[in-house]
């Protein structure tokens, strides 16, 4: 099991992601510079958070044309697993590898805080080790453009086919307007593509996967990934 973490100019959560995969999850991890054209035989590609290309034009809009994204697109097309967090999610949306777009938060503020999310499908790559009895996961967000949007027709398709991964909720797991930090439509915090091999989410599980950080809810996602991919 070999993970590749792509580093774009402006990525800043790459080392956190590598630390969790390598030190906490005990997996082999390589760094993939965005200018490279091959994925070094990785089995799993991660697009980390950050501010690739300074978020110029739109978050992720320029990074999706980095040379490595052709390889990532082909890899995903063939069924390879790709996981994007925060800016990585924005890049996946811009690359049309997952449906939807991420707009400015409705309050126009950069929000950095713990939020609660609830899995909407327990049978996916990133949720299969989360117990249904766990009412919510506490995971931090840190973004200015995390307001997920898609049109009604696409949302219906995504809901019907289990492509909604997480919704923002309160600590008790109630999905309410008050628990929605950024205005995301239907409280959506994470989604996947129709084939369920490409995943994106705004909250940062890699910032909640180490006992020293006093929160390990994010580790459940990495355990799900390792469980499914190494099975």
């Amino acid at each position: 099991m070999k993970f590749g973490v792509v580093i774009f100019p402006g990525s800043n959560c790459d080392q956190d992601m590598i630390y969790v995969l390598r030190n906490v999850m005990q997996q082999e991890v390589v760094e993939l510079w965005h200018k490279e054209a091959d994925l070094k035989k990785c089995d799993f590609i991660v697009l980390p958070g950050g501010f690739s290309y300074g978020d110029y034009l739109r978050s992720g809009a320029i990074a999706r044309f980095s040379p490595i994204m052709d390889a990532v697109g082909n890899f995903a097309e063939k069924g390879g697993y790709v996981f994007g967090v925060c800016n990585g999610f924005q890049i996946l949306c811009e690359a049309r590898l997952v449906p939807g777009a991420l707009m400015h938060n409705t309050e126009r503020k950069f929000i950095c805080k713990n939020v609660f999310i609830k899995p909407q499908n327990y049978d996916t790559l990133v949720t299969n080790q989360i117990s249904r009895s766990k009412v919510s996961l506490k995971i931090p967000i840190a973004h200015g453009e995390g307001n997920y949007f898609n049109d009604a027709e696409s949302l219906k398709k995504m809901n019907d086919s289990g492509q909604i991964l997480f919704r923002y909720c309160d600590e008790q797991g109630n999905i309410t307007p008050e628990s929605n930090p950024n205005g995301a439509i239907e409280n959506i915090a994470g989604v996947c593509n129709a084939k369920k091999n490409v995943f994106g989410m705004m909250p940062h599980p890699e910032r909640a996967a180490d006992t020293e950080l006093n929160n390990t809810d994010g580790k459940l996602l990495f355990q799900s990934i390792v469980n499914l991919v190494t099975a």
Partner: protein
Amino acid sequence: MKFRAEINVMPLKALLDPQGKAVTNSMKNLSLSEIENVRIGKHITLVIEAGNKEMAKTKVDEACKKLLHNPIMEYYEFEIFEN
């Protein structure tokens, strides 16, 4: 021949534009409450080498479709001028 494109990329009309909304509200403080529905987008200019205006238009349209706008949340319009 060089042409100049003046491109506007705007949030889709059906979508809330929080920035525009905040500016609309501030108009009231300026005693300009007649002003409503401020919408804020991006204005992009670029210079393009092309055989004629039609060819320039095709290229600019391609740039808008591929990179300059995201159709899920924005629309665009542009004009081409001889530079």
